[in-house]
């Protein structure tokens, strides 16, 4: 048990392992990004992808790659990174491996905000209405969650508050669909809610990116405080961190990152649960280091899932959010079983 490691070799080993992890994640993102560019109804040979990406002409390959597949791949990486990062930050804040934007109701509240924007025609007035409404919904929901959960929330309280929030927002979305005067519009909302990256343009990227960046900066800066929070709220405070500021940063950061993602891709669940959980042992369970790792891991996993839906031999393209839910929900169940066995 007591491994004898000299300080010198330990110092060598750890930064090397960390570099390896981040290099591996970066490589995975790059490879999956290129595969994503190569996939679609039109077959484009591997050797033609890069020329088409940088071509300044209107050749069919250049248009397909630049206007259809590139936005899809970029959004996959951005939304995935937002979900992974938010999941890691929420788990660090709540010191609970079951926290996730979808489970605690942030995603569905963002979706409700977006539906309101769509339903009442705000989205038609300005494209900015969609992310702004989605982010507002997410902020509101997270504040309600914290109010419900209280100062030192346990697993059960968080999950129950999340279930209550998700049910409420789900019901309100159903009301919007139910009362929609135009059946076509309600069908559109339903499909959009399932979560997808198909048929997105570069405009969607520009719409979401600024909000996501704000969220990412807020969340990534929480690293040292989340590390300190490992030792409890008082110890974190004794190390000079303000818990109120930390909570606010995580709430607002998550709402911006996830809200902007939901606005352009619909609700995609479980990335924020699965990714931090898989990567946590690889970063030595350090919540701060887990933030950038989960952002990169989330980007890779969502790119992979989006490749997956295109490879599935279904008649209509499988929705991305449906796939992540199908894979993520059983994962969540196993996690609950493990949590019941061990205290953490």
């Amino acid at each position, binding site marked *: *048990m*007591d*491994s*004898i*490691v000299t*300080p010198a070799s*330990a*110092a060598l080993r750890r930064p090397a392992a960390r570099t390896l992890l981040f290099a591996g994640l970066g490589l995975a993102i790059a490879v999956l990004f290129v595969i994503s560019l190569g996939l679609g109804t039109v077959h484009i040979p591997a050797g033609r992808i890069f020329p088409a990406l940088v071509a300044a002409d209107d050749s069919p390959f250049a248009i397909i790659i630049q206007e259809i597949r590139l936005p899809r791949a970029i959004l996959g990486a951005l939304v995935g990174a937002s979900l992974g990062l938010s999941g890691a930050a929420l788990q660090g804040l709540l*010191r609970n491996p079951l926290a996730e934007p979808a489970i605690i109701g942030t995603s569905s509240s963002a979706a409700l905000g977006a539906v309101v924007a769509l339903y009442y025609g705000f989205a038609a007035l300005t494209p900015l209405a969609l992310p702004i409404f989605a982010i507002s919904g997410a902020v509101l929901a997270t504040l309600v969650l914290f109010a419900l959960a209280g100062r030192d929330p346990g697993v059960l309280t968080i999950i129950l508050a999340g279930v209550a929030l998700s049910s409420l927002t789900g019901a309100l979305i159903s009301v919007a669909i139910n009362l929609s005067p135009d059946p076509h519009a309600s069908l559109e909302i339903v499909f959009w809610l399932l979560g997808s990256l198909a048929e997105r343009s570069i405009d969607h990227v520009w719409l979401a990116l600024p909000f996501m960046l704000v969220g990412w900066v807020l969340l990534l800066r929480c690293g*040292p405080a989340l*590390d*300190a*929070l*490992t*030792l*409890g709220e*008082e*110890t974190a*405070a*004794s*190390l*000079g*961190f*303000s818990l109120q500021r930390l909570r606010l940063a995580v709430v607002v950061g998550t709402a911006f990152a996830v809200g902007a993602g939901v606005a352009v891709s619909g609700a995609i669940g479980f990335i924020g649960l699965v990714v931090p959980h898989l990567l*946590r042992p690889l970063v*030595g*369970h*350090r*919540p701060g280091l887990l933030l950038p790792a989960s952002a990169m891991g989330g980007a890779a996993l969502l790119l992979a899932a989006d490749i997956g839906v295109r490879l599935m031999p279904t008649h209509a393209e499988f929705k991305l959010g449906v796939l992540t839910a199908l894979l993520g929900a059983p994962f969540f169940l196993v996690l609950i079983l493990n949590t019941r066995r061990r205290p*953490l």
Partner: protein
Amino acid sequence: MPLALDPDPIFADGFSLRGVRVSRGGRGVIDGLDLDLGGAGMVGLIGPNGAGKTTLLKTLMGFLEPSAGTVHFDARPVADWDRAALACRVGYLAQGAPCFWPMTVENVVGLGRTPHHRRFGTDGLKDRAAVTAALAATGVEHLRDRSALDLSGGERVRVMLARVLAGAPDVLLADEPVAGLDPHYQLQVMEVLRASADAGRTVVVVLHDLTLAARFCDRVVLLDRGKLAADGAPIDVLSPESLHEVFGVTALVGRHREALYVLPWSLSQPTARAAE
């Protein structure tokens, strides 16, 4: 010497409390406390359950705001201190020393360095040296790569103590660090704290074991219902009379070689305390 003219000077070194009242849940837990804690040495904070010992430490740290009176550290109100700057000077060992993720002992101890990062930027070499020294001081080097969740009670307290020491604070506040430990670990933790005081720190430690307080502390502060009941050398504070008065116990007080021991032996006959 302008200080000499001041009838009740705020001490320039360490913590100074003047007329401090703290209420928790509508109840006055600390009720008009004047106290100075500073200079090298070990101060034992003792008193019955609910006397306000933990509340006092939390007030010193600025977690709790006094409803009246002032709390100064180095002649500046605690509330005015930059949190990271104060964290560099004052280390705090919370009761129970919780840990939520299975981080390695080395990383947990490294967290003690975070206030310094925020003030002066990271200094990897200095941090590593401080962590190694702290692990050695508490005798937990062999646990370096273990998960902080897989430790026994005694190991965990020493690791958390190493975390505080790694921050190289001038003042160390420890809330019941030996609670729940076997005699071996109790003595070991007290010796680490004693060594820390001998190295020039102010160590304030909440204790329930009166003999440990008598043996290791230079000064004992006895709190009773939020008020200062006695303050001074262990031999003066831990007298049978004051223990009877405050704890309602009859204690055997004696000496083994030169050291004082205090053994609570039986409940006192019905007293003012019991009648209340």
